[in-house]
């Protein structure tokens, strides 16, 4: 018994030595059970976010104002499907099946980013999402390119390459609307007003409210804290708002020389927790739509399965 225990200590030591040298952990490497659990949860949540995230934008594909905008939005939503699939594969390499992850999503056992529980009311929301929501996601994903788990890191590298057009196309939509008729400009401002705060919430609770964060940083899953990333996002985005003549919907926003960044107002944390706990404006409809499409696609999977079985049988004969 004693020697087994020693073995475990040795394994942990090796694991931590690898992290200290910034070496990647690969699927077959020994890893602490908590590390595996933490990553399965994080990666599958990330995958679910990409998949559910297709709904608010998919909602506008048929109503895009021009052929160009329609092609772009379609390509973007298609990329998000791809991102979901890269991430599901990364999670599977840790020993959870695709079927299990979908089951967790459909039954509410797994979460996804709360931002996708807000409705997309106008065309300007397509601009605000690409610019702010993808912008905030990119901030997080750039950091995750250096995460300690190999398959997750490699998925992030691929995703970041593809994300670069997502944010630009959103900002372009906002730029054009902001320079348009008074009604168009108002529509852009309204979208900014509705998406600004939920975008800041995407970085998660404040550091002192985020107990998992410290462990994630110790394991080099995350390299920066929620508040650090949020601050960088604000610093980067405020000048972009001003550039196109819109107004940040926060009366406390103010440049602070001492910290070389913007001070900003307090997030409405009650709203944050309400949406996380499942009571946001669209939580129920998003999951209902996901289950519906899954169920309506069941016959395709069954047919594909039957076809594969037939091929295999012919091969065997």
């Amino acid at each position, binding site marked *: 018994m004693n020697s087994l225990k020693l073995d475990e200590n040795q394994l942990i030591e090796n694991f931590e030595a690898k992290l200290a040298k910034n070496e990647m952990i*690969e699927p*077959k*490497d*020994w890893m602490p059970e908590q590390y595996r659990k933490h990553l399965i949860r994080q990666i599958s949540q990330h995958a679910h976010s990409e998949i559910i995230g297709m709904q608010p934008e998919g909602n506008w594909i048929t109503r895009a104002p021009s052929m160009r905008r329609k092609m772009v939005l379609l390509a973007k939503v*298609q*990329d998000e499907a*791809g991102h979901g*699939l*890269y991430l599901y*594969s990364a999670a*599977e390499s840790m020993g959870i099946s*695709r*079927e*299990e992850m*979908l*089951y967790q999503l459909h039954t509410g056992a797994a979460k996804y980013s709360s931002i996708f529980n807000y409705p997309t009311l106008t065309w300007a929301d397509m601009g605000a999402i690409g610019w702010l929501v993808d912008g905030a996601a990119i901030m997080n994903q750039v950091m995750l390119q250096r995460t300690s788990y190999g398959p997750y890191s*490699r*998925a992030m590298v*691929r995703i970041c390459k*593809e994300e670069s057009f997502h944010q630009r196309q959103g900002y372009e939509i906002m730029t054009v609307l902001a320079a348009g008729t008074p009604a168009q400009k108002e529509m852009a401002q309204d979208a900014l007003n509705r998406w600004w705060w939920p975008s800041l919430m995407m970085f998660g609770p404040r550091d002192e409210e985020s107990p998992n964060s410290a462990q994630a940083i110790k394991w080099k899953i995350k390299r920066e804290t929620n508040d650090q990333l949020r601050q960088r996002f604000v610093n980067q985005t405020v000048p972009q708002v001003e550039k196109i003549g819109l107004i940040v919907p926060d009366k406390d926003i103010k440049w602070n020389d001492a910290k070389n960044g913007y001070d900003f107002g307090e997030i409405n944390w009650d709203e944050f927790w309400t949406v996380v706990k499942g009571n946001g404006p669209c939580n129920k409809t998003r999951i209902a739509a996901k289950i519906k499409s899954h169920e309506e696609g*069941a016959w395709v*999977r069954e047919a*594909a*399965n039957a*076809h*594969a079985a037939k*091929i295999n049988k012919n091969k065997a004969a």
Partner: protein
Amino acid sequence: MNDSQGILWEVFIQSKPGQPHKHAGSVHAHDNEMALQNARDLYCRRNEGTNLWVVPASAIVASSPEDIGPFFEPSNDKVYRHPTFYTVPEGITHM
């Protein structure tokens, strides 16, 4: 939960003719043809490749991480496989 997403396949992409195939990631599919099509849709949306291989993940035989020492050991003490092991007279080039 008797739903099936198909089996797992590993995807290898050749980025240009003449280049070796490189591992890109994985896909789920039910048969060969679907695996190739899914791999194309998932990994080649931006001219990433000129050729694709898909291999059922279960068919891949891999060495294990614990082997890192002993398994590759035999090559460690064979410095004579490298050109720097040999001395040639001063002034000799193209060798």
